[in-house]
């Protein structure tokens, strides 16, 4: 197992700039998720680490060794594809053993390692079956078996659960993470599903339009989003955004939202008068009679223990998460209040989060 270090990675396909100066480091044994909407460049980044695409610029180091221009077969990595890519003309045993055949491993050792991989993935009973008859989850286990049989430097996975149904995916999330921990593997995992990323990752790299917007732990990504995009992409429902115009001084603890003062975490940088955005997670919106923002209840979605209440205000529709025991009538006039220590402020033009006390103590992106 090894550290993966990506520096200034760039990839263009003709005029299309797929990945722009991506940099991040996956420490030995870490589980990193590349998360982003489709077309954001996450798969291209993964394929460059694998050696299936060559970067236009930048370097990739595996365990300290520069492998940027090495071909895939010389990198000693394993790749799990979304559609499994099991060889249909081989049975399970030969599929799992295929990487070993190339290394010239002896027959006894070959058998031992295939059986061991199958045991770890609990597919020993399927070894002599044809892969075409297998269910989705078992196919994915065979694909994983092919990855772990060789004990590579790292695992790269391209939406490996995307082709599975929801129930199977839930089970496989835990299995994958468990497998990672048992093997002490370094893993890079591509997904567009934030729940998957949150559940599995040590670190998440959020990508958008070819740019790595933030690399941080799941908690930091959620609580301290580095940009408007991250704040909007992560969380369901996403963060509420209240646009306003104003300026900030270092140490300022409040902003003027319309004619009302809203307390925020102390600012750590100064800003001249500009268009700003206040970000509030739905669970940090509270209903009070003397709230700083007033609005009308538009509707609510019942989610079991909580409900999402949509309130129409002069800043647009705001969503609030509240206990489902409280009853709201449509059209009811309510006041809203925000938990001051959790608010984020963004610069509207650049989308960048303004440094405040909130962003201290957490890792920065």
């Amino acid at each position: 197992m090894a550290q993966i270090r990506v520096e200034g990675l760039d990839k263009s396909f003709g005029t299309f700039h797929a990945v722009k100066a991506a940099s991040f480091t996956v420490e030995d044994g870490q589980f990193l998720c590349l998360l982003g909407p489709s077309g954001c460049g996450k798969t291209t980044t993964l394929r460059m680490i694998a050696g299936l695409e060559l970067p236009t610029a930048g370097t990739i180091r595996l365990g300290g060794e520069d492998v940027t221009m090495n071909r895939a077969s010389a990198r000693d990595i394993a790749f799990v594809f979304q559609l499994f890519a099991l060889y249909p003309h081989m049975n399970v045993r030969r599929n799992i053993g295929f990487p070993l055949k190339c290394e010239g491993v002896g027959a006894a050792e070959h058998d031992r390692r295939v059986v061991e991989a199958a045991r770890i993935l609990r597919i020993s009973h399927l070894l002599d079956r044809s892969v075409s008859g297998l269910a989705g989850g078992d196919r994915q286990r065979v694909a994983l078996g092919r990855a772990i049989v060789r004990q590579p430097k790292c695992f790269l996975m391209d939406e490996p659960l995307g082709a599975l149904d929801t129930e199977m995916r839930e089970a496989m999330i835990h299995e994958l993470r468990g497998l990672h921990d048992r093997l002490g593997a370094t893993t890079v995992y591509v997904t567009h599903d934030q729940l998957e990323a949150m559940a599995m990752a040590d670190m998440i790299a959020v990508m958008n339009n070819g740019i790595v917007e933030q690399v941080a732990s799941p908690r930091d990504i959620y609580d301290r989003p580095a940009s408007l995009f991250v704040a909007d992409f992560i969380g369901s429902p996403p963060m509420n955004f209240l646009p306003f115009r104003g300026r900030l001084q270092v140490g300022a603890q409040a902003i003027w939202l319309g004619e009302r003062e809203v307390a925020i975490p102390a600012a750590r940088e100064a800003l001249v008068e500009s268009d700003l955005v206040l970000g509030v997670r739905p669970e940090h919106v509270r209903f009070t009679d003397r709230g700083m923002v007033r609005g009308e209840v538009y509707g609510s979605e019942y989610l079991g223990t909580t409900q999402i209440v949509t309130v129409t205000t002069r800043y647009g529709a705001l969503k609030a998460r509240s206990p489902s025991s409280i009853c709201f009538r449509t059209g009811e006039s309510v006041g809203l209040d925000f938990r001051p220590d959790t608010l984020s402020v963004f610069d509207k033009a650049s989308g960048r989060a303004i440094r405040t006390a909130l962003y201290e103590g957490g890792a920065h992106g």
Partner: protein
Amino acid sequence: MSVANAAHSVVEPSAGTRRFAGLLVILYAIITMIPLVWIVLTSFKSPDDAISYPPKILFKPSLEGYCNLFTTRSRQTPEFIQTLGQPHGLCDSIARSRNMVVAGPSNYVPRFVNSLIIAFGSTMLAVALGTLSAYGFSRFRVPLKDDLLFFILSTRMMPPIAVAIPIYLMYRTVGLSDTRLGMILLYTSVNVSLAVWLLKGFIDEIPREYEEAAMIDGYTRFQAFVKVVLPQATTGIAATAIFCLIFAWNEYAFAVLLTSGNAQTAPPFIPIIIGEGGQDWPAVAAGTTLFLVPIVVFTVLLRKHLLRGITFGAVRK
């Protein structure tokens, strides 16, 4: 009818429709089989029965056609034949009954061998070249890919015989006329465009992930191609091989023009088998019957692939 209507299904044809379709297929099969049956029957007729009018359906079978196909004979006086000893085998005795003796083997076997070498040689070459270039067109960013593919296809837009005279002159100059190599190259060049287009379709359908997985597992691209792509392209390769073989096996015009003594194939040879007093129809029919055998065997051996090949891509998995 009432039963069929009771279990009416939108997608399944009714029993009546199916029976009608079956009838049509049988009718079509009979119509296409008649000439073949006629050829096979004629090959077992005596020369007199072969040209009798009205044609005979029932006749006394004879192997004279096959004997005449494989031998050359010379006419002798009955007195001379009397002086000879016992006839050597069946063909000799048939010949003697017509006041002839077997003079030696005919050219049919060498022509047949030429056909085998040229047809299978050009098929293998066309399929091998076609598979490699189809893979290249399918997987790599080839500059001017679409133009090149169109150019390859455009060689099929005219009948090959349209270039017969230039090819004749060219072959004469470079010394390829009447050589097996020349014919193999010619049929390969005609077939390779078909092979590239057919095989590109098949290889496009094979997900790239298979090779990528193999390359990550430590194999080179060529190893991945051999170990992963080829086994999955067998259907397409078999279907393409049959199409190429049928063309090369049956080709007549170029064979007449470019071959004579050395590399002549069976198609130009069979129609000019001359017997006593004109065309020897039973021998021609016998030559044709035997000529059908290799292609039938090849097609039957690969028919599973051929069927899958024709319907390939219509339904995934």
